């Protein structure tokens, strides 16, 4: 039995930034050999993105990059140079899967598109992932997940009401698309095993993100109704939202609470040793109808409580509740701790730091973060000497010519 699920799977990874590297991270953490092809001539944007070790920027000091590139090897090739492209091509027969995430014209211009590469490996599986897909008038749209989250509709539904905009942090859609692309690649790998056929996958991050908005899009197409932002208001729950708890160390604390029915409402009030005869709160439907008044009332109940203690109390009574955690809290969260979520890895330049672990656990072939992300060009010798049998002199020469760069 293999120790890891994907032992023996080989991936040549030309991707950069978020979606591509997060996709191949699923493979790397599960035992596949993933070689990232990077270049100092055009470093991965994340290598220069914060946070950095000691808050000082540096090409090998970014945790942003480190988080998405665990368990991978890294080589450097400046693909704008023909010799570098030749070397990359020599790795193609080794690769079961190739992933790239440039704007669509880049790989074509370099002669590294699927049609060319499959000549070197006929059953190749290749994934191209970019903002808006390989075809169409806006295929060359330059952007990042922050913009895609706006373009695809997630910003719009984040707010307190029509006209209000309070978007999610960061590149939200970068965390939707990889689940679809990894799923498609794994299925394509199995299909190839059964049929011998590889294929090309054109993944538009826009189109992948749409899957998480499907009900609202179907509704609009059918009836013209536009989903508007509505804060925490819900048609199913009231109370439903974040309620202010006692401050801690001068910081605001909040608790999320969701109450679906009369029984939960009753036990919630009992947990607060409170009661209400307000007719607006009498039934679940009345509470949904009068959600603003319910929110106001619940805020008076929660305000003096410690958010964590209150969570334990409400949950014991049968009410859905949890502290609204910040990025410090999640590192001390008992449930994530029990799941073994955080991993400490030793990075060659950054030393030890906590990394997000896997979001699932498998019983028989569990994946894990096998190594910290590679520093730029870390595995050049192993790959060019070991896999391509270049001599030390040849490698030295290619480095001088900034081909291996």
């Amino acid at each position, binding site marked *: 039995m293999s120790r890891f699920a994907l032992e023996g799977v080989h991936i040549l990874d030309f991707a950069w930034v978020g979606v591509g590297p997060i996709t191949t991270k699923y493979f790397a953490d599960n035992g596949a050999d993933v070689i990232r092809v990077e270049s100092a001539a055009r470093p991965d944007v994340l290598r220069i993105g914060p946070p950095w070790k000691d808050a000082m920027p540096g090409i090998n000091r970014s945790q942003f990059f480190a988080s998405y590139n665990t368990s991978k090897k890294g080589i450097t090739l400046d693909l704008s140079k023909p010799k570098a492209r030749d070397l990359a091509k020599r790795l193609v027969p080794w690769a079961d899967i190739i992933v790239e995430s440039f704007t669509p014209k880049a790989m074509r211009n370099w002669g590294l598109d699927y049609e060319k590469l499959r000549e070197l490996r006929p059953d190749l599986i290749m994934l191209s992932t970019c903002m808006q897909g390989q075809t169409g008038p806006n295929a060359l749209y330059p952007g990042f997940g922050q*913009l895609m989250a706006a373009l695809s509709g997630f910003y719009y539904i984040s707010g307190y009401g029509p006209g209000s905009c309070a978007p999610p*942090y*960061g590149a939200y859609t970068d965390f939707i698309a990889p*689940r679809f692309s990894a799923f498609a690649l794994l299925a394509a790998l199995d299909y190839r095993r059964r049929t011998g056929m590889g294929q090309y996958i054109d993944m538009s991050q826009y189109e992948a993100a749409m899957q998480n908005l499907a009900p609202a899009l179907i509704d609009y197409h059918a*009836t013209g109704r536009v989903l508007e932002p509505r804060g925490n208001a819900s048609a199913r729950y009231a109370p439903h939202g974040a309620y202010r708890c006692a401050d801690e160390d001068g910081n605001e604390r909040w608790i999320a609470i969701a109450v679906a029915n009369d029984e939960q409402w009753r036990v919630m009030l009992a947990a607060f040793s409170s009661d209400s005869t307000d007719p607006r709160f009498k039934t679940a439907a009345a509470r949904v109808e009068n959600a603003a008044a319910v929110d106001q009332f619940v805020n008076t109940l929660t305000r003096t409580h410690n958010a964590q203690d209150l969570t334990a109390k409400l949950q014991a009574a049968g009410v859905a509740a*949890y502290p609204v955690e910040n990025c410090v809290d999640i590192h001390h969260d008992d449930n994530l701790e*029990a799941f073994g979520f955080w991993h400490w890895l030793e990075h060659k330049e950054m030393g030890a730091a906590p990394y997000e672990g*896997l979001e699932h656990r498998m019983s028989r072939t569990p994946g894990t973060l096998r190594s910290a992300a590679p520093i730029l060009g870390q595995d050049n010798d192993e790959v060019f000497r070991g896999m391509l049998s270049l001599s030390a002199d040849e490698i030295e020469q290619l480095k001088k010519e900034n081909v291996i760069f």
Partner: protein
Amino acid sequence: MPSELLKGFRVLDLTDEKGALCGKMFADLGAEVIKVEPPGGCSTRRIPPYLEDKADPDHCLYSIAYHAGKKSVTANLATDDGRALVGDLVAKSDFLVESHQLGYLDSIGLGYDTLAKRNPRLIYASITPFGDTGPGKDYNWADIITWAAGGMMYMMGDEGKPPIQMSLPQAGLHAGGEAAVAMMLAHYPRQIDGLGQRIVVNMQACIVWTLMNEQAMPFLHGNHLSRTGIFVGSADARRKMVYECKDGHISILIAGGTTFGNSTKALIEWMRENGFGSDWMRTKDWVSWIPGVFMKLTDQDRKEIDDLETTIEHFLLTMTKHEIYTQGLKRRIFLAPVADVADVASDEQLNARDFWTAVPHDTIGRTLTFPGPFAKLSATPIGSTTRAPRVGEHNDEIYRGLLGLTPDRLNKLRAAGSI
């Protein structure tokens, strides 16, 4: 037609809104996905909003969207017969995904350990709000709870107002996608040695994963962000990321450096052509300007950013979302409209790629337009899907065709309330 990619594999879907997307993804790739639900239909059949506000399962938009392509059988798990039927289905299935209260299926003889004895190939995924071992393993759940527990809620909202959730709950969708990936990861070694395994998906972790680089800020920079509405960055390095325009909002990334500097230059050029902005903006070397979003800005940086942001505010108010986006595309500026579903539905790129898919719904006498495939696969394309099944629509097909039950036996099970 769904893709041929996973044709021949069977998935039992015992999830609710914590994982319905998982089965949808398998169905899109051609697997036979059988939704197993209680005789009255599962809770996902009654999630508002409803199409045309008709509050019945056939008009439930969540169900329409995320049960498309699946089959439905009913089984009353409170009865011995209902449980036995599911056990028999498991024996003929490749995957099972569920999101019941932790331990419930074990308590009725449908846990992994029991089922794996009948079908050692089985891959069995449980979607859980907080994992299977921690103090919260039995916690009550709603989507907003995971949004809060995963740290995203804390960062959404205006200062002085409560943190918020998106107005289309997302945590269950992330968890469903994660389950689909994990099940296919487990499938790979099974194809070699014939053995399945148990998977536990942690929903809280799925949302933590969406926090991008922010989760690492406390450890490396000793700070962390809180909700700042349409601004991004810590208090002393704040940037505006959403601007008003004539008919809505626009998001723009203003920054320097090799990646963003040229976009900022192009924006300034465009504004100057229209008489907005000052000369310093044009002469400044944006490509070598790198004040970190999370680092303290100099007074000069702050002054320049304020001036630039004010100029952009005035400039964008003269145009519509569509006009700005069109120019942004042409000039390669990092911007996007804050699109609502109407903007998305008329987007030229999605139309040019034939993204939208017509799905006939005889249940309600109309054809609905769905988002198309999540990827374009050259050898095994994902075509159109089929409408969500009615509750128990495939009882005959599955129980008679797959399990070989007689019509008589099926009637008895119906009469006893087992299906």
